[in-house]
């Protein structure tokens, strides 16, 4: 088995998407594939790689319809004018899409089928929104039997297709309070803002020139949804967003975002030959299924599977990057895996930084690798819940 290392990681900032008010999204006039086509060549160039040596390209995206349909992953290659010899795959594992890309790349390299794999992630939630528009245009059309036929009742699709309702259901199964979630959200914004201020994210964000509604060009280099001034009282006053007597508010849900992310994986041997200092090595991957109506529980079994591959305990992991699709997802993970909250999302999480669905996987693993480097720590685990009832996890080790 070849060892697999992360040779490079780069992303755009994560803008805040507003499908009903597009002009407020910094990236509203850029397509996700165009953004990705900016990231990839820069990433390749920064690590000094000859693009002809890339053996595979895998792009993750959760809503691969409309303009995010990518011809099997080839259009980002074309838009970036990269060599035709790079094959491509388009992967949809919903919020785990880019991490699925890492997983596939990891498997391709460990088995010796590839030496260099580039993983992309893209999602533009203003231009290709979730929900009604895509649904009503027929761009997505889930089988109606799942909603209507009693024999499928147990899937509880009305809940399972609405992420907010799955979070309500998960919350109901835990001992956490609404205030716990609000506090976690405040923490996320504060940590993210501190990290921004310290310039931590500058090391992973490629600034993009984006045309704005007033005709000006804005150089976008920070994540748009971070609000360091967020206070507990602000969040406590918010109304439930998904059901009348619910507890899940917009404040404890990740925002909608647009971003493109990129990562290059290599066999350790190739990296050494090229004189590249890897960010980290990938040591184990995990994926698991749970009931779709509590999809937020998915990271727990996925992380356990990855840990089991290495015969490790959760307590041996120095830092965790848990995708904050909702505050309750991170809290549930901490409780179920018995984690020290101070090791989780130390630079802020998805509630503040954002969660551009299919692009998030690279951000989680990439940022985690940079945290290990910054903290001079050894082990890290990144995980995410996945709509439809799944979890994905990746364990990395700083070399």
């Amino acid at each position, binding site marked *: 088995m070849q060892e697999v290392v992360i040779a490079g990681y780069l992303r755009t900032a994560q803008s805040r998407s507003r499908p009903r008010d597009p002009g407020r999204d910094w990236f509203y*006039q850029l397509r996700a594939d165009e953004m990705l086509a900016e990231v990839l060549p820069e990433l390749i160039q920064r690590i000094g790689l000859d693009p002809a040596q890339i053996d595979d390209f895998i792009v993750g995206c959760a809503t691969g319809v409309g303009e995010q349909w990518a011809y099997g992953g080839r259009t980002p290659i074309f838009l970036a004018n990269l060599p035709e010899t790079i094959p491509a795959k388009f992967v949809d594992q919903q919020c785990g899409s880019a991490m699925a890309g890492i997983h596939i790349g990891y498997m391709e390299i460990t088995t010796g089928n590839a030496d260099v794999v580039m993983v992309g992630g893209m999602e533009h939630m203003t231009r*290709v929104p979730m929900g009604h*528009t895509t649904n009503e*245009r027929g761009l997505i059309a889930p089988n109606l039997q799942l909603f209507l036929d009693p024999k499928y009742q147990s899937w509880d699709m009305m809940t399972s297709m609405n992420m907010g309702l799955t979070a309500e259901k998960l919350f109901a199964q835990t001992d956490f309070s609404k205030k716990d979630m609000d506090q976690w959200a405040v923490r996320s914004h504060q940590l993210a803002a501190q990290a921004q201020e310290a310039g931590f994210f500058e090391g992973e964000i490629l600034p993009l020139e984006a045309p704005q*509604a007033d005709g000006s060009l804005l150089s976008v280099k920070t994540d748009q949804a971070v609000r360091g001034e967020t206070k507990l009282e602000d969040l406590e006053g918010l109304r439930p967003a998904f059901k009348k007597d619910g507890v899940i508010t917009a404040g404890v849900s990740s925002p909608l975002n647009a971003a493109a992310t990129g990562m290059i994986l290599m066999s350790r041997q190739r990296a050494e030959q090229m004189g590249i200092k890897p960010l980290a090595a990938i040591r184990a991957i995990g994926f698991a299924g749970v009931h779709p109506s509590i999809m937020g529980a998915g990271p727990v079994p996925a992380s356990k599977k990855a840990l089991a591959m290495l015969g490790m305990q959760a307590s041996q992991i120095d830092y965790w990057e848990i995708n904050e699709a909702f505050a309750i997802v991170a809290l549930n993970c901490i409780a179920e895996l018995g984690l020290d909250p101070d090791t989780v999302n130390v630079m802020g999480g998805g509630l503040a930084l954002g969660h551009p669905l299919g692009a998030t996987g690279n951000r989680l693993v990439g940022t985690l690798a940079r945290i290990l480097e910054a903290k001079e720590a050894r082990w890290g685990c990144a995980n995410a819940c996945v709509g439809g009832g799944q979890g994905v996890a990746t364990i990395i080790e700083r070399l």
Partner: protein
Amino acid sequence: MKTEYQTVKVELDKGLAVVRMDNPPVNQMSDYFLEELFQAVREALAAGEVSAIILTGTGKSFIAGADLTQVVKLKDRSEILPKLMAIHEFLREVESAPKPVIAAINGNCLGGGLEVAMSCHYRIAAPGMSLGLPEVKLGLLPGSGGTQRLPRLIGLPEALTLMTTGRFIKTEKAFSLGLVDEVAEPEALVEAGKRAAAKFASRMLNLSARVASQGFSRLPSAAEKADLMEMARATARATAKNYLAPFKIIEAVSRGLSTDFWQDIEREAQLFCDCLLSGIAQNLIGIFLNERATGRLPRIQGMEPKRPKKVAMLGGGVMGSGIVHLLLGAGLETVLWDINDQALAHGLKLLHKTYAYQLKKGKLRQDQLDQLLAAKLTTTSKLEDLGEVDLIIEAVLEDMEVKQDIWKKLENICRPEVVFGTNTSALPISEMAGVLDDPGRMIGLHFFNPAERMPLLEIICGQKTSDQTLATAVAFGRQIKKVPVVVNDGPGFYVSRQLMGLMGGAISLLADGVDLAQMEKALTDFGLPMGPFTLFDLTGIDINYHVEKTFERELGPRYQVHPLSEAVYQLGDYGRKTGAGFLDYSHKEPVPNPRVVEMVERYRQDNGVQPRQAEEREIVDLMLAMAINEAALMMEQGICDRPADMDLAMIYGAGFPPYRGGVLRYADSWGLAMVHDKLKELEAKYGPRFAPAELLGTMAQEGKTFYQS
């Protein structure tokens, strides 16, 4: 809540308001109708008992567009803008209503009609209906939000194509584009509307997600848009350089589709004014309105035309086969006659050729064609077999005796009320009719080649043609979907003589040292499909010469053939058919024919003329002045007296550029006094061919124009 209006009826049914638009004939958006529609919808929006509104039409249309008779009268921005803004305010209220407004598209949904439908929250259409934004064809842009809503609904590439071509699409295509949400049979439209209303009620359909002006997900990125606009501009420059509207549409889109919808709408309204106030739109709308009135002569008003069911076509040549194609297309039983079986077989071969395009494009299948021919077409070489037909069209050899011989025989075979139409392009109708006992039944039906495609039918009355015969001929023209223009008998009738009058001046300029290629370019830049010398070569220099000789003989000294024309004819290079005329066609691109060049040079030397460069203006002015003069002369001589019909005849029969409005509209915009002065100047320089018609002099003096408004 008021339910009965003159042009709108509202039916209330369990919380549902069905608003039926009924402004015959096509639910055009006349002021009084809009007023009632706005009120009816507003009351339904305000009524507490109404939870959803279904908007539909009666008859063959949902809304077929603006009332052009009203639009064309708007002469000022300050008149146009308030009208547009009133519509926008209404559409904004519909879009932002708290209850669904559902368009049940029962018929044609065009222009403003589609713009109304696009502001509704849901669109259901009956199969096979036409939808589109045809404004560009009238020199306009969709001015009720079309340029901003259509791209948001179906994406920019498709929207641009629809708007810049004005092409219609059928319901089925509109459905696949996402312009129509659902297709339902006409009688089930309202029911489907009710089901949709229920879906809104149960939140299966989301009202705010269906507001077209807020739609964003189909708009291109900034970079995509820049590329698309560049391409659209290049296409417009290549295909519509003399027009205005395509460029204004592109501008509305290019500067629009922003986050500020209402600012984009205001810009669209200003651009609409730019279009409407331009001469181009005025000309194109004029043509559109006049087309409906062609052939409606006072002398046949109120007469009941005979409606032929069975028609005989004499002669299966190129024209004959094209006309048979038309007759079959109109569902008429057709008999093709020719002198023998061999000629008939040739005619059928030519007929099949006229269907080649439709077959190739899959618009017609071979078995359908075979079926059509078997059901509707018979052939014969015996005139005696034509006793049953209701109308005869003749396109045999252009020989007076041959034709007269046939007509004489037919007079004994056909019933007395059967109309005899001759497709001669040069022989006098009155003379031809002279052999008949009843010359009143004969009329000229002048088709243009290719008959199955050219939209004009020039109808020529002989001196004795009866009103009944004329009424039948006009109705027949409409039946076979031609624009029927009626003129009186005279050499070249109207179109051929007018075309000679338009192109003939080129010889004077050539003799005066002006470069041939320069004239070709001046006239194609003006918008004509080809320059004068290309046309002479195409028609045949010999044919032209004979026509000129006829004019000289019949119309007097003004028409004396130009010595240079005479010389070119004597050279014997007759044009394309001989491989060379003014131009030599033996190369990849036509080049000046050295034999003609040499001859022209010699002619110029003999007359002490130096070759010279002329301004495009000089060329166009000379040729148009002569054309206008010819039209005035023909009016004086009683060949024709309806300026609108004359202009349409030149647009549809000779390719005169529509945006110029026609020869006489051009004259009006030039100013008849200016035209008169120009002709005086040309007369002094080039002789009596250019002497202004008396009519022009009087009109110029009295400050009159050819068109009354």
